[in-house]
């Protein structure tokens, strides 16, 4: 298992163009750029609360190593939690997550103890190729959580990261530094129908 430290590392996977960088940028900086998104940082960092103290959430972008499993492996072994992103406008992008999931499974062993979130991004788009129920079915099969997001309209972005932290039962983590899981109840209400945690 990864060492217990002050860092909580989240690794984001997904094919090119599904909006990984947009999601992370939206979450970390609160911005969205329609035209050109520079992938400047390799690792983004955000202070969160964990077990009543402060720790850093590290988000590692893996964009370039897609298709190169042995190199991807180096990122997987570093991660505590995983976000697998596809675009709802591309069936192919969901397909491409399958080998990545298999690899996470192979390296981490028991996935049920590892927080994994399957994310269908670009939920604002109308040219849908992957229905919500297809995403849910896939998540069901993988025994992981599922959510649809839009980095563009900021739909479910913060929720995605908070839910991911909630999935980790070994620690008590929150995006709010004061340590309270504020609004968890109402968020859960809001997420009904959009998010299913299995």
């Amino acid at each position: 298992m990864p060492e217990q430290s002050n860092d909580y590392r989240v690794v984001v996977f997904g094919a090119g163009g599904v909006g990984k960088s947009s999601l992370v940028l939206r979450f970390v900086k609160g911005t969205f750029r329609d035209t050109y998104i520079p992938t400047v940082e390799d690792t983004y960092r955000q202070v969160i609360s964990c077990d009543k103290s402060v720790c850093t959430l590290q988000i590692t972008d893996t964009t370039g190593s897609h298709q190169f499993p042995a190199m991807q492996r180096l990122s997987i072994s570093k991660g505590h939690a995983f976000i697998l992103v596809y675009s709802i406008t591309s069936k192919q992008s969901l397909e491409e997550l399958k080998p990545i999931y298999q690899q996470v499974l192979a390296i981490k062993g028991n996935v049920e103890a590892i927080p994994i979130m399957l994310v269908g991004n670009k939920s604002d788009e109308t040219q849908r190729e992957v229905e919500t129920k297809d995403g849910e079915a896939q998540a069901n099969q993988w025994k992981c959580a599922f959510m649809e997001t839009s980095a563009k309209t900021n739909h479910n972005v913060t929720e995605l990261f908070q839910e991911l932290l909630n999935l980790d039962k070994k620690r008590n983590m929150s995006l709010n530094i004061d340590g309270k899981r504020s609004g968890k109840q109402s968020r859960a209400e809001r997420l009904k129908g959009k998010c299913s945690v299995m």
Partner: protein
Amino acid sequence: HHYESFLTGACKVKDNWLLTSISVRLERVETSRLTLLSLQLHLNIVCSVLYRHVMNELLETERAYVDELLCVLEGYAAEMDNPTMAHLIPSTLLSKKDILFGNMSEIYQFHKRTFLKDLEAYTDCPELVGRCFLERMKDLQIYEAYCQNKPRSESLWRQCSDCAFFQECQKKLEHKLGLDSYLLKPVQRITKYQLLLKELLKYSKGCDGCDDLQEALSSILGILKAVNDSMHLIAITGYEGNLSELGRLLMQGSFSVWTEHKKGHAKVKDLARFKPMQRHLFLHEKALLFCKRREENGEGYEKAPSYSFKHSLSMSAVGITENAKGDNKKFEIWCNSREEVFIVQAPTAEIKTAWVNEIRKVLTQQLQACRGTIKHRLSFLLLSFLLHISVTAYNHMFQKQVSRRAQTLFLRVPPATTPPSPSGWCQFHTTHT
């Protein structure tokens, strides 16, 4: 150009008052054409602006990368030799600098002295930046060594990541992220170039450097594939020889393999027919290795597969049958005139084609190298032969005898001492069904 000539043409027509009505109609067309033209122009501008953005990102991230590597080398690697820090270094870490940092300093020197300068030289003609990559492809192979070492480095890091030495270094550097994030940078950097090249390509359709960019992209993808493949090599166990003597690793992958031995017992042969073995194959320039994949029992990090060595075929002694009957995912590799046949089934037809192409390339290169040496030998022989004639052919009556001598000379060509041995190309044949 089309638009321009059309416009000048349209202007001429307008000057002629006799053709006013046509001109009016043309003007309408012209307006829509003009809209198109301005749209086209607009698109070109947007593309070049975006291209500049990507070029900027390439340059800025390259500078940042060089700085970060320097930070690590000075703030961590050099500190390991600092006597005032010595008491903080745990025994597990002592004299293991090379394992922890791999060839990072070589990578740093290359980027600092060469690649960054090369890239900067293209600031004024960014459309040609693809060439910069093409010129440095060989140098970028240094990443193979870095990535190969990375798992060892990681396991060392896990043993001592909490030690006071690293904490002290990180504090001095005022780094928010730990050393492990920086040790991953080279892996992230080498995989990032292809993304940037793809972006550049998107905005350079039909431009000057377009072909170079395309070529640079496929070359860098080739490098990544080689790095990825080479990382599997370190997991091979039980191979007695030296892997580095087998030439470059060209392909690796998992297959179902059946074997046939002509001399073997019929029973064994039949059994082998039905039950394939799962084998991980490593194709090198000089040999093909058959390994058995073993999942380690470790937890988490340690759960890396290993490949225990089973069998090796010298590429100078094999032949290939590209299409095995009835299955487009199968091919055959054999040696000793098909006395020993390996039927190999790839997971997909595409993978099979890629392998067959690569094996064919190796065998063809051997054939050419062989022809080369033979040609060389022949020209040498011919020279001595001509000398021989000039000395001996004073009498036309002895002509027959001379040519007979020449024949025996040819027959006495010694076997090639340099690899590849002739048996390889002699057996090289392909069947297409």
